């Protein structure tokens, strides 16, 4: 198992290198960027860029140095917009906020989606199931950026129950977490239902019944694990969906996370910040995919660990 984990983590290295390389060349070779003489960039930023990219060197030397700088010192360089801040500083401020939003949303999505899916499967084809299925389909179709304004209108501006901006207390977190989580919860519910239906028909669940276990134990001890494997597989893409969704959620609720900086950087053409944030996103997403694979292998003893 430990070897499997190490191997899986090691397999990230080439993909990450590829991603990082891609980002470097995008930034460095993109036209219309700060390296063009036409754009007016503050002199201190140019100086920092010069230091970071050593613009007089040939590109591949630049690449080598840049990569060494990134890998050895974890430095992502200066930003254009905030001359006295580095990309690292911005990430240090915003990453915890986004992670917090993402993790709460993920927990919430699972806490909502799994029980709904299980109930749907247990009451298959009766009206509660049909209703839940339809709601889930609607839930995963309505975009977060439509849902959020609607809920703000309802809970924030009509009922005055909840604050609608910033991220200071748990009351501030309720709406953004809910909006971020809902589409994922819908996906989870659908996957749980389908997975449970498949497992509940399997021979080993019949064996569990033949032992005299109560329906509750049959579901909880025997069916749930297999039925939830599709959900586990989905956690990687689901987390990626959450991060991407956090771009709009952070914008709508004015939350100072990575997503907001990302969008701002895009609008300011703050190339270096975009590059830095992309790298962090890439690491997060690929890392979470690896974690999911590991979790899957841990849950399903049949997964070959030796490949």
């Amino acid at each position: 198992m430990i070897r499997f984990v190490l191997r899986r983590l090691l397999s990230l290295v080439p993909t990450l290198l590829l991603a990082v390389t891609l980002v470097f060349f995008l930034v460095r070779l993109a036209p219309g960027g700060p390296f063009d003489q036409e754009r007016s960039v503050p002199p201190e930023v140019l100086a920092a860029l010069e230091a970071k990219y050593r613009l007089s060197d040939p590109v591949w030397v630049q690449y080598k140095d840049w990569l060494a700088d990134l890998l050895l010192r974890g430095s992502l360089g200066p930003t254009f917009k905030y001359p006295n801040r580095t990309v690292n500083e911005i990430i240090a401020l915003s990453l915890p906020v986004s992670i917090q939003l993402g993790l709460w949303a993920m927990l919430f999505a699972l806490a909502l989606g799994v029980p709904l899916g299980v109930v749907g499967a247990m009451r298959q084809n009766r009206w509660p199931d049909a209703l839940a299925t339809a709601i889930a389909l609607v839930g995963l179709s309505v975009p977060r950026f439509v849902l959020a304004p609607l809920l703000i209108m309802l809970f924030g501006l009509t009922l005055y129950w909840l604050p609608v901006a910033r991220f200071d207390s748990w009351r501030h977190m309720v709406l953004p977490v809910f909006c971020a989580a809902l589409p994922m919860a819908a996906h989870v519910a659908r996957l749980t239902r389908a997975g449970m239906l498949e497992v509940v028909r399997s021979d080993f669940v019949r064996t569990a019944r033949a032992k005299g276990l109560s329906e509750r134990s049959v579901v909880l001890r025997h069916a749930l694990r297999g039925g939830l494997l599709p959900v586990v597989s989905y956690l990687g893409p689901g987390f990626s969906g959450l991060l991407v969704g956090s771009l709009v959620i952070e914008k709508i609720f004015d939350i100072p996370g990575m997503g907001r900086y990302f969008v701002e950087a895009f609008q300011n053409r703050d190339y270096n910040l975009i590059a830095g944030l992309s790298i962090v996103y890439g690491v997060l997403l690929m890392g979470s995919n690896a974690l999911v694979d590991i979790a899957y292998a841990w849950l399903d003893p049949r997964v070959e660990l030796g490949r």
Partner: protein
Amino acid sequence: MNEPTTKPAPAVGASQWSDAWRRLRKNRAALVSAAVLVALAVVSVVQPMLSALPYDRADLALGPTPPSAAHWLGTDLYGRDLLSRLCFGGRVSLAVGLVSTGLSFVIGTSWGGIAGYFGGRVDQLMMRVVDVLYTFPLIIFVILVLAFFAHQDTVFYEAFVAVYGLVNERARDPGYLPLYRLFFVFFALGSVSWLTMARIVRGQVISLREQPFIEAARSIGVGHLGIVFGHLVPNALGPIIVYTALTIPEVMLVEAFLSFLGLGTEEPLSSWGLLVAGGAETLDIYPWLIAFPGLVLSLTLVSFNFLGDGLRDALDPRVRRDS
């Protein structure tokens, strides 16, 4: 282990399509969805032709007004007719659905078809590429590409000017920059949405390629490409249709998402995502500006998903959710 399961396609025959049609007809949600989508498409295409109110004609003196007889869905901050802007947005969504999905279809079926047909090393290499791309956060990648390349000073822009110049000699006019950006979004989305399609087609092709009718085609001298595109892909049409129906809302959603963030379609053009973004700014004072675009966008996506589910149940009865 995150691969979608691909099952061998059943032999396709006329009766199979009529069976599928019979099953689909019994699915009321899918039929209603299809009707809604057709209606939305027709209105989006036809309304601009009939209406006297272009999507970009501002009337600053009028400003934002709620729905009225003159403006059925009201007007926005600049006094522009919301219905017209919504219909233009509908055209954008329609175009994304056609162009991006079309592109993903072409790339996906070719990639998967060739990999599955030739098998062996070719297959391994091609699918390895797909696996690696799968682990890439592709939306982030699209945003990156948009950030760096959706500008005037790129070869892509020159290509746009060259092609668009064929129909409009003032293609280089800065007024057309938003249009260029729109096309850029289309192509960017299409070129990252083909991975699942490739996997599905490959699975189908592998299960079909040893079938007698493929042998027969080979024996009468049909070439490799002829077999892949003339015989294998058409016989895998069921799952391809299902997946296409699910890709369309996905690319539409991403376009709306990008536009919402200000990274996609730009003013003065209109798109549902852009309209939602604008409406969200003033949702407490001009609620209709978010209500209608939000509703139409959600309705479209919900309908596509119901239709896609219905198609899957109809065309692939083995994975029907009710046994």
